[in-house]
């Protein structure tokens, strides 16, 4: 294994979910034995992924819905309890999920503070960067409006601007870049290149094959929680496209 500059290393990672079944139990089921077990179902979202991510890479994750892409991304942050396996990393990856911390009723400006604090920065550090975040998001006219008045594209722009304001070493992106307009997509691509150039790592989940080939140096094709194929973007995406067209 060429681990000379591994920045994130996945070792036989398994992630299972236990979810409540929404099926109606009925009176009969209510009195049947072992019904508690039957109300749960185990979803094997990721079942044995081993991979070394290297610094200075942009890696695309592709695969059909439910193939475990988003779960794998969440597991890379160490946020998800693993069933088994290990996630090793040089520094804790930042998932571009800062929008989950933002409050729709509050203005964009107040949300920059909340997002920055959620990322672990102090009030002073956030204040210092607020101007730059507003500039990058291109939302200076709307920044004092409540966030719920924003379009999904505007929300994604603000989230991206906050999450990348401190140039994380490892950035994980779960399908957001396609939301912004052409100009913002251009700017976010530049920022991704910046992070990669500082020998960081960017991993992005997307269904947009054009984005994959234009942004990524490597591609991983996930299928049913396992790596089906990985390598050159052109090779993997064309194999993936022909697989889904013959299905």
């Amino acid at each position, binding site marked *: 294994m060429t681990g000379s500059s591994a920045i*994130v290393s996945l070792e036989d990672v398994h992630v299972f979910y236990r979810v409540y079944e929404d099926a109606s139990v009925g009176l009969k089921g209510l009195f049947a034995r072992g019904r508690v077990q039957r109300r749960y179902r185990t979803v094997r979202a990721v079942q044995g992924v081993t991979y070394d991510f290297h610094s200075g890479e942009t890696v695309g994750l592709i695969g059909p819905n439910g193939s475990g892409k988003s779960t794998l991304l969440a597991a890379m942050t*160490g*946020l*998800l309890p693993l069933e088994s396996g290990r996630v090793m990393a040089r520094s804790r990856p930042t998932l571009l999920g*800062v929008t989950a911390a933002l409050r729709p009723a509050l203005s964009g400006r107040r949300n920059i503070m909340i997002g920055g*604090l*959620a990322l672990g920065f102090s009030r002073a550090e956030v204040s210092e960067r607020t101007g730059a975040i507003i500039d990058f998001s291109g939302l200076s006219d709307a920044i004092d409006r409540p966030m719920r008045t924003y379009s999904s594209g505007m929300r994604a722009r603000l989230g991206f601007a906050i999450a990348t304001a401190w140039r994380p070493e490892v950035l994980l992106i779960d399908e957001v870049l396609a939301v912004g307009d052409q100009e913002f997509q251009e700017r976010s691509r530049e920022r991704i290149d910046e992070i990669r150039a500082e020998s960081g790592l960017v991993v992005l989940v997307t269904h947009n094959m054009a984005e994959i080939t234009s942004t990524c140096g490597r591609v991983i094709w996930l299928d049913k929680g396992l790596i089906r194929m990985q390598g050159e973007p052109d090779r993997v995406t064309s194999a993936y496209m022909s697989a889904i067209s013959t299905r």
Partner: protein
Amino acid sequence: MGGMVEDRHPLLDLSEPQSVGSYLRDVWRRREFAVVVPAQDLRALNMDTVLGQLWHLVNPAMMIGVYFLIFGVVLDTRRGVDNFLGFLVVGVAMFHLTQRVMQDAGVAIPRNHSLIRSMQFPRILIPLSTVNGQTLAFVPALVLVLITLLATGERPALRWVLFVVVLAGQFSFNVGAALISARIGAAVRDFNQLLPHVFRLLFYVSGVIFSVDVFVTSPAWRRAFALNPVYDLVTCARWCLMGHPADAFVLAGFIAWAVVLPVAGFVVFRRADHLFGR
């Protein structure tokens, strides 16, 4: 992976649990999050209303008004207590703070599920934010309680200074209660359906709306009441503000709960900290 490789680039194991020391350092480093976010949430709460932020004052004022109307004017019950309105308002305000903290904390983890799934921070900040938010929201109520006491004939005494200590003790108790409530509420969703009934029961056995001293005369039973933290809390608060009697058992109970519960809560909560992402 080869050993040589790992030596050159030491990777940290993200699946390994954090030590207590580094966990607490992390909490301290992010303390501003647990203050700013609940404060902003409070702002957002009444943003669309006509009265806006005034509701934080109007709400407790209306609560006091209703109690005044029912117990002061309509029923005119004294139930063996001088200044019954003051007695009632102190009890109800303190009781409600702890109730809101526990009920809010019970749903805090499920409500912040997407935040937990997408960002790394010590999960304890979520119930701590709940306590901070409810404590902030309690400040206007507290001011009105003091005004009510002055308006009903109580006079400030040196004992009022000790009330600050009682509030600190309640805060400490609330932190522990919130951590335990958050932990149980995350594991067993049924808990949040049960909690309002537990508090309804507590409301009647904690001397919130009647003086336990008047109804319970056996010393053994009074000692049993001292095991109830909410009874200890309201009794200590009334001793400070109104000079009502509080015995050593109540005081010992209050201190014990305020010291033990946050420690127990921390242990209970941290044990499940890594599981909350599910």
